[in-house]
């Protein structure tokens, strides 16, 4: 019986510091099947697979490959066992050709026999229906070509067990279809495949079985044929947990931001945010839900003046309600926005790489947004000094002193410093991205409390979040993004977790849903 399994992972536990990423997780992969590993962001899917591919090492638990218990301490060990993983961030050298990347680091004669490599690559391609030009340079390849190359690379190195980490996140629907076709070919050839995903339609379309993780715990597995989108959503998001977050009814909400046709393309020309139209009201918390990378970052950065937009995009700021004067924010820089008197606070996702200067002290970081004020060429230190002291006192920031570089603070304290500074500017709009990611329970509640205070003060608060329980209990309305589009806006008080989870993964045809 046990020989039927290509891989069995039993009671796998992995912790990072105080965070338990996997808690006694169980996974089995049968020979010649496609298994979906399903779960929300942060449910521990990638961590689990990284232990199978030798990137991390489990704290406890056993791994069996072909029925035998094995120790996988490095990617090298994984390859020796026939396990290959395609990561979300491709590990390819840009200036080398496909064949060179495939051959990189392998043992062999002093000269790379390009013809032999190319022949073998072609053989793999023909067998499974890939399309790879061995002589093409990686920098000339599209994202999907690079992904194909990564898969061919793992096969070339003899992988029988393939792990694909969210392979479709970067693909168009057509490319996804193509990928699924070769995955089926590989399965029919006897390869065993694990696909990490949080898209339900893909689970249903491609996999034979599905294993579900939630918050680092193993929830269960089932035959895909017996599952449907509803049942999978239920297992993925779980039962609603009561968090006791306070939520007041908004008092006199006035329209403060009018977002119209906001479209953002990245450097490669891929549309990241697709004509989003949305209103943000003063005195309410607007939640933004979505799978990671669905345009949340672009939405906030475009409003803050940090992101180029496609013409036709517009964000109007109305400090005194819908009838009052308006300020167009698109086309401005963060500096000009501030100089026009728009008090826009922004708590970005990358706290130490964007919101704060890691090597500077608390006091130095307090100055970041206000150092320009005043005519003197010298920076004013008294006010930031007092401000740092006040934040440390009021938010219980644990730090040796206010002259400690913020790099040395723990994650929760870093976030308190950042949020504290942004609130101290007495904003009229407060945007936050993943404000409680990686924070402990107490600090998270401090952040919720601060956001609620701002809401009561009449600030328009935007909360981009990933935990649906929090979104549903903190926010007044929730905008659900899916693939860069606004899928729907739901009422935070009446929407259910399943509904939002569903909207995150299935794009509604009705585009007018929320606008």
């Amino acid at each position, binding site marked *: 019986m046990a020989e039927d399994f290509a891989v069995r992972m039993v009671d796998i536990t992995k912790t990072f510091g105080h965070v338990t990423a996997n808690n006694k997780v169980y996974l089995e992969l049968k020979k010649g099947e496609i298994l979906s590993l399903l779960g929300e962001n942060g449910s521990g899917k990638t961590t689990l697979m990284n232990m199978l591919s030798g990137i991390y090492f489990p704290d406890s638990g056993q791994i069996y490959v072909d029925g035998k218990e094995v120790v996988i301490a490095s990617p090298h060990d994984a390859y020796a066992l026939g396990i290959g993983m395609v990561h979300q961030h491709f590990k390819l050298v840009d200036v080398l050709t496909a064949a060179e990347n495939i051959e990189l680091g392998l043992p062999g004669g002093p000269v790379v026999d390009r013809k032999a490599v190319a022949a073998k690559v072609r053989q793999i391609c023909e067998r499974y229906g890939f399309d790879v030009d061995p002589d093409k340079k990686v920098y000339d390849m599209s994202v999907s070509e690079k992904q194909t190359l990564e898969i061919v690379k793992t096969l070339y190195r003899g992988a029988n067990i393939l792990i694909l980490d969210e392979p479709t996140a970067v693909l168009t629907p057509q490319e996804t279809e193509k990928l699924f076709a070769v995955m089926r070919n590989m399965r029919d050839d006897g390869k065993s495949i694990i696909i990490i995903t949080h898209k339900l339609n893909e689970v249903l379309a491609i996999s034979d079985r599905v294993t579900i993780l939630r918050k680092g715990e193993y929830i269960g597995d089932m035959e895909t044929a017996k599952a449907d989108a509803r049942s999978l959503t239920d297992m993925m998001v779980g039962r609603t947990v009561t968090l006791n977050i306070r939520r007041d009814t908004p008092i006199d909400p006035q329209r403060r931001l009018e977002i119209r046709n906001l479209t953002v393309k990245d450097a490669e020309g891929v549309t990241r945010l697709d004509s989003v139209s949305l209103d943000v009201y003063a005195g309410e918390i607007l939640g933004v839900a979505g799978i990671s990378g669905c345009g949340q970052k672009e939405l906030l950065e475009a409003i*803050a003046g940090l992101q180029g937009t496609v013409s036709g995009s517009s964000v109007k700021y109305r400090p005194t309600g819908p009838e009052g004067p308006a300020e167009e924010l698109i086309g401005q820089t963060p500096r000009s926005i501030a100089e026009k008197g728009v008090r826009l606070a922004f708590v970005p996702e990358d706290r130490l790489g964007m919101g704060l*200067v890691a090597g500077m002290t608390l006091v130095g970081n307090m100055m970041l947004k206000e150092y320009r004020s005043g005519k003197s060429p*010298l920076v004013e230190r008294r006010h930031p000094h007092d401000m740092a002291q006040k934040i440390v006192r009021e938010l219980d920031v644990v730090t040796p002193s206010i002259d400690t570089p913020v790099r040395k603070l723990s994650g929760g304290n870093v976030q308190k410093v950042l949020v504290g500074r942004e609130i101290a500017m007495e904003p009229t709009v407060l945007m936050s991205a993943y404000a409680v990611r990686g924070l402990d329970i107490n600090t998270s509640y401090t952040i919720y409390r601060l956001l609620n205070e701002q809401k009561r003060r009449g600030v328009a608060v935007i909360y981009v979040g990933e935990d649906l329980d929090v979104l549903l209990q903190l926010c007044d309305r929730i905008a659900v993004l899916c693939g860069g589009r606004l899928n729907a806006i739901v009422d935070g008080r009446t929407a259910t977790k399943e509904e939002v989870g569903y909207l995150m993964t299935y794009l509604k045809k009705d585009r007018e849903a929320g606008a």
Partner: protein
Amino acid sequence: MTKHEPFIHIARRDGLAWWRAWLIRLAAAVLALLVSALFIYSLTKLNPVKVYAAMWEGAFGTPRRAWITARDASILLCIGVGLAPAFMMRFWNVGAEGQVLMGGCATAAVLIYCGRSLPTAALLGIGLVVSLAAGALWGVVPALFKAKWNTNETLFTLMMNYIAIQLTCFLVAKWENPKGSNSVGIINQQTQAGWFPAIAGKQYLLNVIIVLAVAVGMYLYLKYTKQGYEISVVGESENTARYAGISVRRVLIRTMAISGAVCGLSGFIAVAGASHTISTSTAGGRGFTAIIVAWMAKFNTFVMILIALLLVFLEKGAIQIASQFHLNDYASNVVEGIILFFLLGSEFFIQYTVRFRSHKNKKEVAPS
């Protein structure tokens, strides 16, 4: 389950008490002097202690020697101070040599062409301005290309040095005096027009005063002004700078203008205040040495004073032992190199801890 973990584990330190850091540096310096002593002994069979004593004699033995040491250290310091803002911005300005020469050439031009017609005060005033401008120009050109096309600044500034060197050679040939000597000679030797005046009878006091003023000024600029604040934000993270509404390009260009200008000022001091002539040895490699001074001082201008003094002391001392013990004075570069190698290496032990860990302990910290 056993995991094959590296036997040696290197981890970043959380920060070391300043006195322990300096203790490590001191230990490195002592070690370097021991190695140098061994080197000197093997070469000359002389008692290294005597040699070091002779070096001290050479650098500080007479008031005049001490003043020359101070003069040369102050020029090295001035260049280092000029480099500090660029390095703080993480802009690799290795073009100080050229920026100094351009400042020197500009000063020499003023002294030569206006030496008869203008009084010393005016000559110094104009010389100061044009040398600042020349140095700034040499610094801004690579910055412009960096800002616009992200052209590698290390290589660009490096090449600018040699353009400046050839330009200097060109001017020397043009201005040579007397004809055929291939040197400019002492400019305005009779009139001393455009020379730094002696203060309180001390010929080089003005040099030292100016440089100390610049050093203090730069310290204050970097630490207390809005522009200095912008420089450190850009140096730490360009992303944060954009978030805070700082124009990275503007800061880049402005800072390199300042950096180049201060290096140009060093050329002004070297020509009008010290050698009263111009040649490629007006910079003489000090533009490169100053890079090391600025880097090792971690942009702290006061620490630079210490390092600049140490290096010039070595140089002067080596010249002394060279003449006393019939070596040539390149010995100083060898000792300098050895000391710098050790100091550079010592930074590792300040930044990192090395642990030899047992195989049983396999806790990992922090996810990637």
